C-alpha cells in the first residue's frame, strides 16, 4: 500500500487533473481510498497545490524571468533560513533554493520589465542584511520545464494504423 500511495503522488505530479476514480482504476485501488489519501496529503501539505504549465510565449503577455544567484552570510542559530525567509516573502519571488557550490541561494523572480527586475534586485534583495552579492541572469527562452518540451515535436510522415 505504501508503494501505491507513492504512485498516487507520481500520477498527480504528472497530471493533476486525474480524478480519484481514474487513479483508483489505474492502480487497482478503491476510489474512496484514493480520495482519502489525497485529502490527507493536502492537509499535511505533502501536496502543496495544483498548477497548469503555461507557455506564456504564445500569449501577448510580456514579462521577464530572472534567475538570481545570491551569496549570503549565514546567521548565528538560523543558518541560511532567516535570510531565505526574508526573500521568499516577496510576491514576485517564484522560487528560492539553497544551493551547494559557488553561491548560496537561487532566487527566481518574474517581473513585467527588465527594469522591474533590476529594481527588485537593487532596492529589495541586495540591501537585505547578510546578502553579500547578487548576480542576475535573465531567462531568454524556455525549452523544457517539468518534463514538458515547449516546442511541438514533428509527427512522423506516415504511420501504420492497424496490426
Amino acid at each position, binding site marked *: 500500500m505504501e508503494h501505491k500511495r507513492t504512485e498516487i503522488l507520481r500520477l498527480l505530479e504528472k497530471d493533476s487533473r*486525474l480524478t480519484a476514480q481514474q487513479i483508483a482504476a489505474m*492502480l487497482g485501488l478503491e476510489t474512496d481510498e484514493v480520495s482519502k489519501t489525497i485529502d490527507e496529503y493536502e492537509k499535511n501539505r505533502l501536496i502543496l497545490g495544483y498548477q497548469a504549465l503555461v507557455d506564456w510565449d504564445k500569449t501577448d503577455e510580456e514579462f521577464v524571468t530572472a534567475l538570481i544567484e545570491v551569496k549570503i552570510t549565514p546567521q548565528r542559530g538560523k543558518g541560511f533560513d532567516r535570510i531565505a525567509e526574508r526573500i521568499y516573502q516577496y510576491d514576485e519571488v517564484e522560487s528560492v533554493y539553497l544551493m551547494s557550490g559557488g553561491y548560496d541561494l537561487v532566487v527566481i523572480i518574474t517581473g513585467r520589465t527588465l527594469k522591474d527586475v533590476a529594481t527588485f534586485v537593487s532596492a529589495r534583495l541586495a540591501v537585505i542584511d547578510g546578502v553579500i552579492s547578487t548576480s542576475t541572469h535573465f531567462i531568454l527562452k524556455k525549452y523544457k520545464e517539468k518534463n514538458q518540451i515547449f516546442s511541438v*515535436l514533428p509527427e512522423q510522415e506516415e504511420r501504420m*494504423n*492497424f496490426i
Partner: protein
Amino acid sequence: MMLDYDKILSSRVMDIKPSGIRKFFDILQDMEDVISLGVGEPDFITPWHIRDAGIYSLEKGFTKYTSNAGMMSLRKEISSYLDRRFALKYDPETQILVTVGGSEAIDLSLRVLIEPGDEVIIPTPSFVCYSPLTTIAGGVPVFVETKAENQFKLTAEELKGAITPKTKAVILPYPCNPTGGIMEKEDLVGIARVLEGTDIIIISDEIYAELTYGQRHFSPANLEELYPRTIVINGFSKAYAMTGWRLGYVMGTEPLIAQMTKLHQFAIMCSPTTSQYAAIEAMRSGDKDIEQMRSEYDIRRRYLVDGVRTMGLECFEPKGAFYIFPCIKSTGMSSDEFCERFLIEEKVAAISGGAFGPGGEGFVRMCYASSMDNLTEALARLKRFIGRL
C-alpha cells in the same frame, strides 16, 4: 499485350488471404479525429540515448555492412542481456542471429524446419503472420483455439490432441498478442511432458517478454528438457520502443542458428548497421527505460480493463503484452460488425478478434500503448457506443 498475372504469380502466394483488416484502411482514409487503438506499437518514441547512439554511428561514418549474423559486440550484449534478464544462456559466437525484426526470425525459423506437408501447430488467437509464413514455407498450419477460461494458455491436452506424425513445430506466442495470455513454468512443464520423445521444435515468440505484469516472463528454453528443441525469438521493438528500427534476434542450438544464418545471409545480408549500433546502447543502459515503460503500460492496462468491465463487457485481465481482448458477444454483433460500426460511428479503431485466427470471433483487440488522454476519450466513446445499442 496484357500479361495474365493470375497465371504468372505463384499460386502459393496468391492463395494466401490478405489480412482481413484491409477494408478499415479505406474507411480510415477520410476520417479525422480518429483514436487508433489498432496498432500494436508503443506510443513512446525511442529513448534519446538510444537514438543518439544511432546518430553518433552515422556521424562516425559507420555505414557499411556488418557480419551476417550481426556485430559481435551486439551479439555479446544480447547474450549478457538474456542471461541478466531471463537466465537464458546462449553463446554469441554460434547461437545468436540478429534479424530484421522478430518477423524475419519467425520466417527463418519456419523455413529452416519445414518440409512440404509438415504441420505447424499454431495456438490462436495470435499474431497474424504465423499461418501465412508457414504456408509459404510449404507447411500446413494446424490451429489450436485457446480459451479465455484457460487464460488463453495452450494446455498440454490441447497440444497433445493436435500432434500428428507430420507435426514439425509448435509456435508458442507468449506473452500473447492479442490475448495477453502468458505461459508459466508449470504450464511449460506440462508441454515438455507432451513433447518428450518427439522431434517437435518449439518456436517461442517472446517479443513481449519484457512486458509482463506481476511476474517475470518464463521461457520454454528455461527448462533444461526443452532447451535443445526451442527457438527463442525476441527483438527491440516492444521493449525499447524501437519498432521502426527493425531489429530482432533469434537464439537456438548451433545447428538451427547456422542454417538460419545461411538463409539470412542470402536474403538480407545483414541487419541495418545504424540500428545495430543503437541496439548496443539499448542493451548496455536501457534496463531502466524498460522498467519505466512497463510501469506506465501497467497503469494503462488496469485503467482500460476497469473501464470496459464497468461497461459490462467481459474481459480477461491480460498478464502480458499491451492489449486488452474483451469479449463483445453480449452486444449481439460480430467482431467485424462491432469494429466497423465503432470506427464509423465513434471514430475509434480497434481490431476484430477474427483477424487473429480461430477463436478470435466474439472478441476485439484494443491496444493500450496509447496516451491516457486517448484511452480516456476512447472509453468515453465506447460507453456512448454501447449505450446506444
